[in-house]
Each structure stands twice: as C-alpha cells, then as structure tokens.
C-alpha cells in the first residue's frame, strides 16, 4: 500500500498501490506538443468561460489566476498552480467543519481544482500528488453525503479493485445499479458526481477508473475488462443490489469497456450505454497520428493515451500496442450483445472517428443511437448540447427507462 501525503488533521487515504504505476514508463517529451503555453491558456479560459469540459465547474476568475502563474508547460508547475486553489478550498472546508453541507461545497471545489491539477493523467510527481489530493478532497466531501459513498475494495489477482458505490437511501428492497466507467481523464469520482442524478430514480452507481488509469489494478490491454466482471460478481453477492438490474455506462475511452462488456457480460447485464466508444479505427496508427494533435483535446493526448498501456515509452511502442485493442481484432463484433444498448456520438469527433460508431451499430444485437451531426467527442457541442444537457436529456432518461 502507498499512503498519500496527508494534510494536517486529515486521515491518510489509502491508495491502491497500482495508482502511481500507470504510465511510469512513458516519455512524454517524445510526443508532439499540441499547443503552446499561450494557446493552452487561451483555450482553457475560453472553455472555463463557457463552463465546458474539462473545466466544468471551475470559476473563470480563479482559472485566470491559476493560468497567470504559469510560465511554462512544466507539469509540476501546472499541478502546483491549480493545487494552490485546491488547497485554499480545502482549508476553507476544514474551517467550516467536516461533515457539514457547507464544507462539502468547499471540498467539492477543492476536488475539481486538484483534478484539473493532475489533468489529463499524472505524468509527473506533482501531478501524482495532485491526484492523491483530489481523491482526499472528494472523500472529504463525501463524508456529509446522504446517501454515503462506500469505498469498496474487491480483492483481485493479488491486488484490489477500488470502486465507489452509492445506493439510494430508504430503498424498499434490492436496487438497480449502474456500473459507471471513467475515461482517459475522468475518474470514478466524476462518475459518482454525474450519476448522483439517478438516485432519486432509485438507481445506484458503482464508479470505477478504467484500466490503465487512476486506481485501476490493470493496464489497458485485451482482457482487462475482467476487472469489471469481478465487480459484477461482487455486486451480485450483495443483498441490497438487484442482480437482474445491473447496467454499464462508459464514456469516451470508458465506452470501449462498455462495448466489450455488452458482449462478454451480456447474460448478466440488463443494459449498456457507450458514449463515443473507441472500437477499431481509433486504435489504428493512421488515426492516432492525427489524434496526437487534435485541437479538440487540450494537451498531452499522446502521452496520456500511452500511459494506459504497460511498459510503453515511445510513440512507436504506443502505436504498436494500441492496435491489439481493436474490438474487430479481438473478434468481439461478431458476437451477440446486450439489449438494450445506447450508443451516443458526434459526427465531428476527432478522438473517436464516427466510422467506429457506424461499425459498432452494424454489429451484434439491435442498438439505440443518438448521433449529433454537429457534435464532437461525446456528441458534445460548445453550446446547446453540452455534456450535462446530453446527460440529462438523453443518457439519463434512457437509463431510467432501461432499468425500470
């Protein structure tokens, strides 16, 4: 076990020992730089001003403050500048007293800044520290949540799977649960926050980091979906969970696992949502070369992607390792899949080509789709169909109906 550095008056948070291992081999300096510092700053501010990913929930004035401190693209400097605001909120929360709703808002804000401090993945020691703080802040906020967030540790191949489970309060019996899988740069904390909206519908959430990220015990590789099969085993053993109503949601890279589980776990799942799933082309060298430099992603896309694979150092090694994950290559697309399944996508997605969505829709059992002709990754737009709107109007009603 690795024990994260703790702040005063704070219980140490036990981190999965694999946490700091993902991407330790990657040499980010060998990947193309996607934006200059000035370009990063301009784009960050613009996204913060419209409350868009990956700066949703950050205060524009504070974003300006953090950006102003940056004089280089150094990852530790990045982590330090955002963490400074995170520390401020953390202190404010502690001052208000743990376990109070007032403090919760502060801890949640701290979590958002620490998360952006480690964004997209912890490729430096400073970012690793920020990630640890992000989890501490989130769990501090969770202390006053009703219903509680249960940190579940499932023994797995000599290590453990860490999941956050949140079940609706006062349920009259076993409840449906959606397993929500984070993506390249979103984490189980984000999943718990997003699926909060399903609790009033009597649906619980079990949030996970995807293989190769966060506290996941396995890297991105064919077969890593078995960690979720183990999580399903665990859920089915719980008396408070309705084992006939277990669904899976995956967004962005997390949707790759959703698409896989729709096949491998079709007997045990009752519904699957895959939002912008990488299927085949997204793993091919020709496409990945462009994905290294897509302006849709803020920065560090190449090394972040590479960090999910075990032992990958260079772009060349990454391109070679990526191809093995194609669902075509692995034969998954010839298999029956869960019904119902919803696929959400945007035609202008530069991270997962729409051809992957066409391919998935033409495979397996019938699927529902929501396709935005003007949407990018996740089907999102800069205005109108932003992430929370897609979630509220498309994903959530579909899940509620599927788990009814």
């Amino acid at each position: 076990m690795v024990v994260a550095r703790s702040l005063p008056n704070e219980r140490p948070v036990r981190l999965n020992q694999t946490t700091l291992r993902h991407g330790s081999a990657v040499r980010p300096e060998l990947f193309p730089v996607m934006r200059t510092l000035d370009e990063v700053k301009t784009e960050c501010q613009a996204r913060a001003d419209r409350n868009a990913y990956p700066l949703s929930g950050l205060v524009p004035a504070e974003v300006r403050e953090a950006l102003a401190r940056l004089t280089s693209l150094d990852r530790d400097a990045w982590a330090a500048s955002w963490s400074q605001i995170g520390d401020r909120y953390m202190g404010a929360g502690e001052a208000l007293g743990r376990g109070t709703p007032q403090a919760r808002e502060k801890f949640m804000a701290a979590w958002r800044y620490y998360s952006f401090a480690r964004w997209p993945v912890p490729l430096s020691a400073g970012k690793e520290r920020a990630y640890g703080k992000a989890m501490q802040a989130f769990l501090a906020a969770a202390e006053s949540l009703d219903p509680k967030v249960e940190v579940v540790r499932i023994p797995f191949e000599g290590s453990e799977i860490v999941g956050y489970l949140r079940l609706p309060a006062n349920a009259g019996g076993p409840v449906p649960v959606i397993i929500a899988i984070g993506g390249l740069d979103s984490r189980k904390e984000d999943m718990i926050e997003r699926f909060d909206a399903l609790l009033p519908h009597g649906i619980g959430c079990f949030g996970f980091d995807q293989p190769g990220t966060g506290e996941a015990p396995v890297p991105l590789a064919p077969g890593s979906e078995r960690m979720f099969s183990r999580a399903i085993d665990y859920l089915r053993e719980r008396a408070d969970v309705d084992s006939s109503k277990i669904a899976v949601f995956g967004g962005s890279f997390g949707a790759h696992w959703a698409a896989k589980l729709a096949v491998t776990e079709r007997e045990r799942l009752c519904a699957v949502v895959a939002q912008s799933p990488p299927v085949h082309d997204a793993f091919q060298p020709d496409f990945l070369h462009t994905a290294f430099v897509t302006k849709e992603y803020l920065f560090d896309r190449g090394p972040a992607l590479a960090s999910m694979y075990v032992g990958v150092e260079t772009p060349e090694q990454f391109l070679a390792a990526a191809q093995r994950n194609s669902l075509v290559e692995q034969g998954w697309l010839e298999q029956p899949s869960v019904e119902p399944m919803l696929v959400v996508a945007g035609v202008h997605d530069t991270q997962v080509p729409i051809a992957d969505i066409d391919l998935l829709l033409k495979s397996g059992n019938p699927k529902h789709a929501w396709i935005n002709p003007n949407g990018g990754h996740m089907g999102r737009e800069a205005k109108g169909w932003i992430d929370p709107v897609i979630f509220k109007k498309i994903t959530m009603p579909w899940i509620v109906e599927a788990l009814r």
Partner: protein
Amino acid sequence: MQQAAIAQPAPLRTLAEVKAEALARAERGSYPLIGLDPADVRTALAAIVTTDRDEWAAAWSAIGDRYAAQGDHVRAWRLYSFARWPVPLSAGKQRAYRKAVDAFLAYARDKRLPLQVVRIPFEGHEIVGYLQMPAGVARAPMVVSIGGLDSRKEDLAERFAPLLAHGIGSLSFDMPGTGEAPIKIAPGAERMFSRALDWLVARADVDASRVALYGGSFGGYWACKLAVSERERLVGVVAQAPPVHEAFSSEFARGNFTNTEYLFELGDAMMSLYDGAETYADYVRTSPEHSLVAQGFVGKPTAPMLLIAGALDTQVPISDVELWLRSGDTPKEAWIHAGGGHMGRDAVTWRDPVIFAQVTTPWLLRVLSPTKGPSA
C-alpha cells in the same frame, strides 16, 4: 455493354420459388403476408399456375370474396390487399385494390373504429386520408403517417389505431404514385403532405403544436423531406428505412429488378411510381434525380428524428441511413439492427409489429408528450 445495361433484367425467382417463399413468410407471420392464414395461403398458391398478374389477383380475391360474404371484412381486406400486391399493374389487381379499400372501410365500421375518410382539395384533385381522433380529448396530438411502395393508408390506419388509447390521433395517406394519391413522384411531390398539414392544423380538435410524422420504407423518403420542409410544424419525425441517396442510383435501380428480399416485382413496382418513367431505361436514367442529395435536402436543418434501419437491408442500403444520421443540424436518434433487413426487421424476433410496439411507439409517445421530446 450498352445494350445489356438498358435491358430489363429477368426476375430471379421462378413462380415455384415465389410460392415457396410466400408460404414460408405466411407461416412465420411475416411481411408482406402478415395476418394471412397459412391454410388460405396454401389454397391461393395452389390456384396460381402462371405469373400472370390477373391470375394472381383472382386467386387471392376468390378467398377474399368468401370472407367478405361471411362478413369477415378484416380477413377479406388482407387477402384483397395481397391480391393487388405490390402495386396494381393489371386490371385484375386494380379491381382487387378497390375491393381491399371497401373491405377495410367495412372492417372499420364493424370494429367501430373512429375512422373518417377525409378528402382534402388539392390542385383540382383531392387528397384522400383516413382520420382517427381519440375520444374525450379536446385538442389531440397527432401522427401523420405515410405508406410506402406497397403499403397503403389502410395498413397505417390499422397500425396507428392503438395510439388512440394514448389520446393520440392519426391521419394516414398513400404516398405519391400509389393508391389514391393525387400525384405521382416528381420533385416537390411532398407538397401534398404540406397541404394535408395545413388542413390538419386548422382543425379545432387538433393540437397544432403536437404533430408528428411517420414514414416507412419509401414513405421514409417523404418523412425525411418533410422533416426538413415542415420542421417548424412537426415535433418529431420517424423515418424507417428511408431511401436517401444511394438507393436512387442507377445501379440500385437496376438491382431492384433482381432483389430477392422483396417477394417479387420490386423493379416494376418502383418504376410505376414516377411521373414520366415510361420505360426501364427512363427509370434507370432518371432515378438519381430523386436522391435527397441531388434535391438539396441532405444537410438541411430538420425536426427531431428517429431513424430505424437494418444493416442487411438490400432495398435501402444502410449507408443511406448513415448519411442522413450524420447530416443536418439536429441530433438524431436511431435504432439500428445489425442483423435486420429492410425496415430493420428480421425473420424471428424483431418482426414489424415488435419494432412498432417497442421502438416506434415509445418514441412517438415521448415526442408527443406535453413535456416535449429532447432538444438542447
């Protein structure tokens, strides 16, 4: 080469093969023999010895007549309809079509369906539609439905009747070039439905802010057009297996004459729809003019839409549905069956009525609900 390209290909199915296929489809309750009794199908098929269209019409009509005499108008209607199938290209089939309409109306009276035949003046002619209004609703939300190449307003009126129980009315039409439609297919023929919408929204018993539209197969083509041209007046449009672009290519037009997903005569039936397509060569040459790309509809803003399709469709390539899904300004919903053929249907699980009940109906109920469907 040139000669071969303009010669109309011979059908791939022999009469014996048509009979075997028709019986197989009847036995699994599948299109276009849904609702026919396999015993009746066997009797009719036994009476058919040539591919003569009048002989076909007579064999099915004979059984239809028997049911009509017994007052079983629904069976009579289905048999007469199959007697004119796919389109009345002979005098005998035309007679069968008239009988089908009469039998259907008799069936509607027997069942006390709240069905009115409406006649909307249109360019010196009239548009004939079937209107069904729900009881006890002051201003009803509505679904306008449009038939395809071989389905008719009778089929649609029957299919949409279950929505009455949800307080939703329906208005059903034959598409241009079929049934009682006043015009054949030509660019702009969708104006007959715009005229029908004018008429519909002027009714005091209709909620003009809640009108949706459904079109299946070739009817889906009009659904796509109207999703653009009438997007202000439609809250939602369902297009099931709509031909959009490639389906109108000359290559596809030629292929219609040898299509075996369709029971028989797909090419001849298609040809009969178009204004000015007198010969096979005319049809193959002019078909591409009807593409929604050629006519400038692809990429235009649309009303909210649901597309339904099968990846194995041989009458409308799935690429047409993909093209429509990725075009325009509004997100579109879809239901895609990887193992489905035309209309997204398969032979076992996802038959037409199942898709209608589990996919089409819930979507229509959603967009017609007072709290509206999804929009950003």
